């Protein structure tokens, strides 16, 4: 996971010369997002935890079978997310459990300029600690800045570098996570070459 993060960090300067494009209204797409995150669990008072925050590593994958372009700068996506957080780092005799979660997600992506957009998302997760089979509900709110990577030959494809920030709301404690990832979109139509940014 660390290696993936390093590779993505090294790829970051490439985004400085990236280009974007404009999509047509009502155009549809499908997509996939994979992320690697630092995941921080914030203990509640009744946990009596000696630390203010517990650090995990997390992986998140979201599949978007249906997205629609609502306007040249706004896209709406529905999909399904799966996430896994490892056990936390140990501190003394305590450690926080690993968990996995899955559930439906909805997103709005707004382009702020041709190469930069921001996505806000909400996900309703069914979450369970690994080995315990004790499902509970968890709501995830996300803000995900996206930078368009280098243009691809086939303009129906789009790959963006994403910097997701998530807040997970549970009944007993809250978590925050942040990381790096990639999002791939496949649109129903190619864009007009004249709309490429030089």
């Amino acid at each position, binding site marked *: 996971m660390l290696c993936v993060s390093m590779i993505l960090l090294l790829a970051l300067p490439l985004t400085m010369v990236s280009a974007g494009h404009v999509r047509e209204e009502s155009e549809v797409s499908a997509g996939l997002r994979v992320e690697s995150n630092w995941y921080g669990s914030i203990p509640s008072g009744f946990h009596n935890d000696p*630390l203010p*925050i517990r650090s995990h590593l997390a992986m998140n994958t979201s599949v978007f079978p249906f997205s629609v372009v609502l306007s040249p700068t706004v896209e709406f996506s529905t999909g399904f997310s799966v996430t896994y957080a490892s056990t936390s780092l140990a501190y*003394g005799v305590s*450690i926080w459990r690993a968990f996995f979660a899955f559930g439906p997600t909805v997103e709005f992506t707004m382009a702020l*300029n041709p190469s930069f957009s921001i996505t806000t998302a909400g996900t309703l997760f069914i979450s369970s600690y690994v080995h315990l089979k004790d499902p*509970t*509900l968890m*709501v995830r709110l996300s803000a995900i800045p996206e930078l368009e990577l280098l243009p691809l030959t086939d303009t129906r494809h789009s790959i963006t570098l994403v*910097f997701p920030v998530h807040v997970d709301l549970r009944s007993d404690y809250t978590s925050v996570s942040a990381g790096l990832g990639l999002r791939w979109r496949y649109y129903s139509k190619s864009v007009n070459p004249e709309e490429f940014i030089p």
Partner: protein
Amino acid sequence: MRKCKKSSFIFMLGLALLGIAILSLTACELITPKPIAPTIHLLIISLDYKNTSVTPLNGTIRDAKEIKAAVQALGARMGTSIQTMMMLQEGTATPYTDQLYPTKAHILAQLEAFATSVDIQSTDIFMLYYSGHGIGSAFDTENPDRGNLVTAKPNNSTAYETLSIQEIKDALHEIDATKLLLVDACYSGHFITDYPVTQEMRVSLGSGYDSDLYYLTAASDVQLSYESDLDGFGNHGYFTYYLLEGLGWNHSLGDEVVTSGIITQVGGGLRVDGVIPVLKNSRIIVTDIYEYISNSIKTKLSILFRQTPQTGKGPMDMVLFDIAWQATP
């Protein structure tokens, strides 16, 4: 359209700040001064009921003595200090005045002594292992005493006493350490206090939840806990047998010696360089032990004799052994 150099710069700056924040937070476990390496204080309570009219159990004492040997051997291997106390009722003897004879009063007195002992630090681990009867039957689901422990008879006129779950929890609550309760008894799932979480997205407190108390119980609150001779080395409780196996105990590494009905030497041992199934990433975690025992019992017992070990819910878990503790004072 134009390139947005300014926004890219702001974005990069924001990203850098975010990265710094992430690194700082990630290091929380690393930059906070580590607590001192814990000592494990192990109190073992076990009864075979052969000095009373209660149905005798043939594996409990063997379980208890092997647990003691296994934890001590693991402590030596993992560099963790172990202090052990045994409260046994073994065979037909009736040492009523012996403070280590496990009557209700003696058990509570010992727990109180642990609570006031200056030898136990808040960073230590207190383990209570019990193997014996848990009171109840399959038909008394409303019995408030279900799951209580059956302790040794205190005199010739009483067959046994019971120690309630609440009495044990209250006594454990007074011990300022991280506690692990291991109960190999029928209906032992009653020991587990519900984690304060509901499906209504709110926490329900006031349930007596103790974040310092971790559990491993042999059965659920409606199940029996079975014992049997699983490998030709004598009776063991299923739960304790697989607990021992998970900790790396190997019954073929030594012969049990029984003198006048008393086990004077346990059978088996812990191979110095042997595999410890529950040792992962150089540490042993309670949930990994739970998983190992649960999966092992599932393959051994038929569906007619279901026994599903239990552990506490919620996000918190307990590290029982950690090689890294060797590096801390």
